[in-house]
Every structure is written in structure tokens, then in C-alpha cells.
């Protein structure tokens, strides 16, 4: 864990007393009182039930949502000050079902951000090869396929390759493995956690799966009804005395035949 102590003090992402509410209805809070520092190299897992505001926090980081109250700083600059296009090109984004472009081949999907950034063709092609190898797909076999010719797990691998292609310092992942069957999910989680330890990325990972959070996180932040209720390393997290933490930890234990 914490593989990069030298740079750990630098905050890449910071929330300062952020609140977000639907359009013009300040009483309808989605998230509130959010203060959070995410140092370089951290893999922060935002854990919470559906509707707890996890995805909202993610979209506040890449400027897809702007905070009506408080500031979100990315690389020491408020998201409201960033040019949204420049901000997002420096942040990889992976979502459930991958969101690959169905009319692009695997190679074109992975090459998306490098192409937008006007990399020359040989550099882009080399990068695509490198990325596909990184996520365990043989370019000779997969580069020219369309997303519909891939399995769910392969699509998700391509999604990760696409997000990493332009080498962004930050990676946002919104339940990337949520739609996969349990066996494929476990396989991708294992590979991804190994990958994370090799890459020097700051990752914010959204999930409602405690098992996934424990496996991947250097720190777990638990959200409940739009507020942070706990923040701990995976080891500490299991020992926390909080009702919502217990609700999640009890979801881990299985007694076979208990309901028979």
C-alpha cells in the first residue's frame, strides 16, 4: 500500500466544503459538507449505497458538474477556473458498460484522446499497442474489432485502456466492473489492483461493493445521504464503529443455508 511516500503530501484533488444540489433547489441536496483531500498516488474508493452521491462527487472532479457552493481543486486550480476540455483530457474516465463508441474499432476507441490531442500517427499506434498489452488484450486479435464483437469483460478492459491512453495523472472510475458476471468481475478486480500498483495514478473509484473497495483502496471514504460518514484505510475501516459501516461489513458475511 502507499507505494509513493515521496509525493504523498501533494494534494492532486481537493474538495473544500462542497455542496451540490439539483438546479435551483438548494433544499434538495445531493451532496453537502464535502471536504476531502486526495494526495497524488492514492486510490480513493468512494463507497456508498445507490443515491448516496458517489457519482456526483466524481463528476464534480472533472467539471461535468460545477459546485454551487465550495470549491473543487484539481492540481491546485478550481474546476470553475479550468478550461473544461483541458481539465477532462488530463483525467481518465471509466464507467459501467464502458461507454465505448460503437462505430469505432477497439484501436480507434483507445486512440481517442491521443487523436484529440493531435498525437502523430506512429506515436498513437504505438501507444494503442502498449495500452492493449497493458490490459491483457492481444492487439493482433483485438485492435480491429468493434465493441459489439467483445465480451463485457473485454469491453471493460478496452475502457480502461482508453482512459489510460493519454497518460492522465488522474483516473475516475464509476462502478467499472459493476455490470460484469461475478467471476469476470473478480478476475478484472485482481488484474486491476495489480495494474494500479504499477502505475503512478491518482484514482477515485466509485463502488457499492465493499469487497471491491477493500481490495483496491488505499483509503475508503464512506458516503451516506450525500455526506462523508467515514474515511479510513481498508484495515481500519472494518473496525470502525458506525451504523453504516456495519451495514456494509455485514453484507460481506454469508452463512450458507441460513434462510432455508
Amino acid at each position: 500500500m502507499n507505494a509513493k511516500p515521496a509525493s504523498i503530501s501533494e494534494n492532486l484533488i481537493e474538495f473544500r466544503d462542497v455542496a451540490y444540489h439539483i438546479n435551483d433547489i438548494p433544499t434538495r441536496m445531493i451532496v453537502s459538507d464535502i471536504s476531502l483531500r486526495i494526495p497524488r498516488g492514492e486510490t480513493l474508493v468512494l463507497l456508498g449505497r445507490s443515491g448516496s452521491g458517489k457519482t456526483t462527487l466524481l463528476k464534480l472532479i472533472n467539471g461535468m458538474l460545477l459546485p454551487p457552493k465550495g470549491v473543487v481543486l484539481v492540481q491546485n486550480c478550481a474546476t470553475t477556473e479550468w478550461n473544461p476540455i483541458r481539465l477532462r483530457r488530463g483525467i481518465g474516465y471509466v464507467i459501467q458498460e464502458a461507454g465505448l463508441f460503437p462505430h469505432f474499432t477497439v484501436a480507434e476507441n483507445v486512440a481517442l484522446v491521443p487523436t484529440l490531442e493531435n498525437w502523430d500517427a506512429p506515436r498513437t499506434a504505438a501507444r494503442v499497442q502498449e495500452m492493449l498489452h497493458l490490459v491483457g488484450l492481444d492487439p493482433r486479435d483485438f485492435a480491429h474489432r468493434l465493441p459489439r464483437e467483445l465480451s463485457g469483460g473485454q469491453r471493460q478492459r478496452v475502457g480502461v485502456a482508453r482512459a489510460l491512453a493519454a497518460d492522465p495523472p488522474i483516473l475516475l472510475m464509476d462502478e467499472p466492473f459493476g455490470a460484469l458476471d461475478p467471476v469476470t468481475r473478480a478476475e478484472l478486480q485482481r488484474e486491476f489492483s495489480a495494474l494500479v500498483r504499477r502505475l503512478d495514478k491518482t484514482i477515485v473509484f466509485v463502488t457499492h461493493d465493499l469487497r471491491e473497495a477493500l481490495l483496491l483502496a488505499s483509503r475508503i471514504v464512506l458516503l451516506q445521504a450525500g455526506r462523508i460518514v467515514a474515511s479510513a484505510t481498508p484495515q481500519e475501516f472494518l473496525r470502525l464503529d458506525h451504523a453504516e459501516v456495519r451495514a456494509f461489513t455485514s453484507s460481506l458475511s454469508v452463512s450458507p443455508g441460513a434462510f432455508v
Partner: protein
Amino acid sequence: MSPWTFILDHRGEILSATLDHFTLVVIAMAIAILIGVPLGMFIVQRPTLRTIALGIASIFQTIPSLALFGFLIPIPFIGGIGKRTAIVALVLYALLPILRNTYVGLTGIDPAVLESAEAMGMTRSQILFRVRLPLALAVILAGIRTATIITIGVATIAAAIGAGGLGTFIFRGVALVSDALILAGAIPAALLALIADFLLGFLERRLRIS
């Protein structure tokens, strides 16, 4: 005289009327596409304008075609007797399916695809031209196909205001109570519609993704 001998005897005239008809349809469709597709792109992000544009286009569709040709005759510049008026009316008819399908095609895209496009730092116009438009192409083409078939049919009525085409035979046939004349107009018109349907349908299937 049987319709077949009539058609064979007058094949030169019928062929030139078919060509006239075809030209009328191609010009009207070209204009309708040039108006309908960009307008459809424009109204995607503008709900008020969308209601107005789709509403007006729907109203034109409800006007009986012969009446629409009649209404246009007295209008200065676009009206009068002849091809120009016919083309205006045909464009108005073709507009709705093209406009509606462009809008539906552009908005009916998987939200996850649009979300990742935005999150990857694509600009609004990059999303439109590189993602939305290519993915909407098959649906837009389906609208163009519908509009083309409508236009081929409606264009037969354009003969009533002196625009020529295959309708000339049909109107003459109705006046003279001659099946042979009516069929001399109707059969080529039906064939044109079938061929257009087949070719555009083929193109549409080629463009369909997923």
C-alpha cells in the same frame, strides 16, 4: 388496346416523363435533406424551437397534397404554375420524416457513450460530428427513405399544376377513363418507389451499427 401495347407504343414518352418525375423527386429531396438534416441538428439542444419546427412540419403533412399545390399557386415568387411550385410543395412534404428522424437519431444515442465522450474532453462539435452524427446516420437515412417514397407518390399530383412527370398520364387517363393511360403513369411511379426503397434500405442496413 391493351395497356401493355399502349405502354410499349409510347415507351419514349413514358421514359421521358419518368425522367422528369425522377428529376423532380431528386431536386425536392436534395433541398429537403439540406434543410431537414441541419435543422434537425440545430433543434437537438433547443426544446422550444424543436416543438415549433416539428409542429410546423407536421401541419404540412396533414394538408392534402392537391390542396397544398393549390394553396401555393397564388403565392408570389415560390408560387405559380410549373415545376418550381411543385418542388416547394414536395420539399414541405418530405421535411417532416427527415427532420423527425434526424432529431430522433441524434437524441437516441446510448447515454453512456455521450457521457464518456464528454468526460474524455471532446468539445460539443466533436461530439456532434464524430459521435452523434455517425451513430444517427442509419436513422436519418430511414427518414430520407420514407420521405423519398412519399415524394415519388405525391409528385404524381404535381402534374395538376403543370409540373410534368408521370402524373401527366394519370390525370389524362382519369379524364379519358383510360386504364392504359393511368397504368402508363402508375407502373413506372411504383417501380421508382420500389427501386428507391430497395437501394436506400440497402444503404441503411450497411450503416446500421450494433
